């Protein structure tokens, strides 16, 4: 039964083992734990996630919309709505996997407790990110319902925006986990929100077409994940669906996987010495 003794170097990843080799379906037990906790506070949580994008929709859509009139031939509020579903998903997942995950990783030692069971570190990170994606989906759903009440949903394609909200949630949950892994304290997250999330919100084409920006800023915007989400969402809402959304979808998928992989590595560095 004896196996070779471990080597002298600190083992971030053991030889012959792929980075995500310890990933399993047990990730869903971590996801389930988070859902279970959420069901106790879901009203406050949905209101929190819905409140801000809804305020933007009403203030900008009604207030600014009167001055702007139409953008690309559609009323401003209808131009705005699809993007705000994306930002709602982004914010929900980001809050969850920064403040939420950080609390579970540090103050509550939840990760430490789970690591004493057959659930692996990769499962924990995946479970947290799945939950972040789910939060994105839930916020997207709430937004879509409200928007349909306002008569802003004119295409059946818009239902697919829920899937998109999940994907956006996964991407931003993964990105947030990387930040969480590096965060010395809660204060650190204010940098992330100010320097990354706020520009994302403002320059990804939610409030105005990205083509309004100078050329270099358009290039910058292409590197913002949310830009691709907004592109897809707007196509779904207007019903102008063409093949270009697959390019955006591919972009989001590739970066989600990349960010997830980095998140696993960074969390491992943080909690397994």
């Amino acid at each position, binding site marked *: *039964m*004896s*196996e070779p*003794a*471990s080597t*002298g170097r*600190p*083992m971030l990843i*053991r030889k012959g083992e792929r980075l995500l080799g*310890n990933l399993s379906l*047990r990730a869903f*037990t*971590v996801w*389930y*734990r988070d859902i*279970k*906790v959420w069901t*106790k506070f879901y009203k406050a949580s949905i209101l929190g996630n819905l409140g801000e994008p809804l305020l933007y929709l009403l203030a900008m859509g009604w207030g600014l919309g009167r001055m702007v009139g139409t953008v690309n031939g559609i009323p401003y509020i209808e131009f705005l709505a699809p993007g705000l579903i994306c930002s709602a998903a982004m914010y929900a997942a980001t809050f969850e996997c920064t403040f939420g995950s950080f609390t579970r990783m540090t103050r*509550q*030692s*939840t990760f*430490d*407790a*789970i*690591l*004493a*069971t*057959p*659930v*692996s570190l990769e499962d924990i990170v995946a479970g947290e990110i799945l939950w972040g994606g789910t939060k994105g989906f839930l916020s997207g759903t709430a937004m879509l319902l409200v928007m349909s009440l306002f008569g802003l949903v004119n295409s059946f394609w818009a239902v697919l925006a829920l899937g998109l909200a999940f994907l956006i949630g996964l991407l931003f949950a993964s990105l947030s986990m990387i930040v969480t892994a590096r965060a010395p304290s809660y204060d650190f997250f204010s940098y992330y929100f100010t320097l990354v999330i706020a520009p994302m919100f403002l320059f990804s084409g939610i409030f105005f077409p990205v083509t309004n920006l100078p050329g270099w800023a358009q290039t910058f915007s292409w590197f913002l994940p949310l830009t691709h989400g907004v592109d897809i969402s707007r196509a779904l809402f207007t019903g102008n669906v063409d093949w270009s959304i697959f390019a955006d979808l591919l972009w989001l998928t590739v970066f989600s996987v990349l960010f997830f992989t980095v998140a696993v590595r960074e969390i491992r560095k943080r909690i*397994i*010495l």
Partner: protein
Amino acid sequence: MTTVLSASDLTKRFGSFTAVDGISFNVGKGECFGFLGPNGAGKTTTMRMITNHLPVTEGSLSVLGMQVMANARKVKARIGVVPQENNLDTDLKVLDNLLIYSRYHGIPMKEARKRALQLLEFFQLADHVKSPITQLSGGMQRRLLIARALINEPELLILDEPTTGLDPQARHVIWQKLRQLQSQGVTLILTTHYMDEAQQLCDRLVIMDHGRILIEGSPRDLITKHAGNEVVEIRLRDDEDRESCLDAIGGMIPEGTEVECSADTLYLYSPDATKVLTGLALDSNRTILHRRATLEDVFLRLTGRDLRE
């Protein structure tokens, strides 16, 4: 006896700091094995290597016949872990803590509920099924931690300071439950600062300091070997030191007696203290204490009396 755990030259380094420095030990099935040592001795680091929380730097560590880390999932499925820091899930109520933990272990829901209720009964928590964790006393939280560690019916239970910070009643309840578990065949490994706890529970123990094992044996044998059977403590007067005190009490100390002196007390360790006492010129207003030797004497003699912070 079947070996449940076997460590050889086990080493853990954090950067240039060596927390555990090449220790070797074996634990047999059904034993209660203790780790004693001052703060920073390497006890918790050792526990965390056993529980697959920390990778081993050097040496080998096999738990239930499997090398740790490489077989992390399989090992963790068969051990129970009671950590030093309370990490109960404060977002969940008492019963949910056990049920969610069962899911991590992949225990079917019906079976999990049955086990959870039995464990809450066993640990006298049955009245608190729906309580939030924050409403439990320290002793209750610790009992729940142990209950949680038993949900997968482990063959080996690892306890890192299971009774630190608890009142005497709570400690005695936990000791009794641990003895009961041991009699059911569960192997126990624990760390503690409390010598009485080690004496109460452990069949064998090691005393660690600076990452190394100093001695290993049964509590009784260690006491006899390292502290004799009995101790006479003589409090020094303000103006006395070791030599002047020995002079004052006559210095007729029988062979086989070991003398040690701390800041204000002279300790005479002896197989037979009555003999020591009769040989001494003790006046009536001198403070003396004649008692049986304990594990604490062994511990202090081996690790010194300096503060560890």
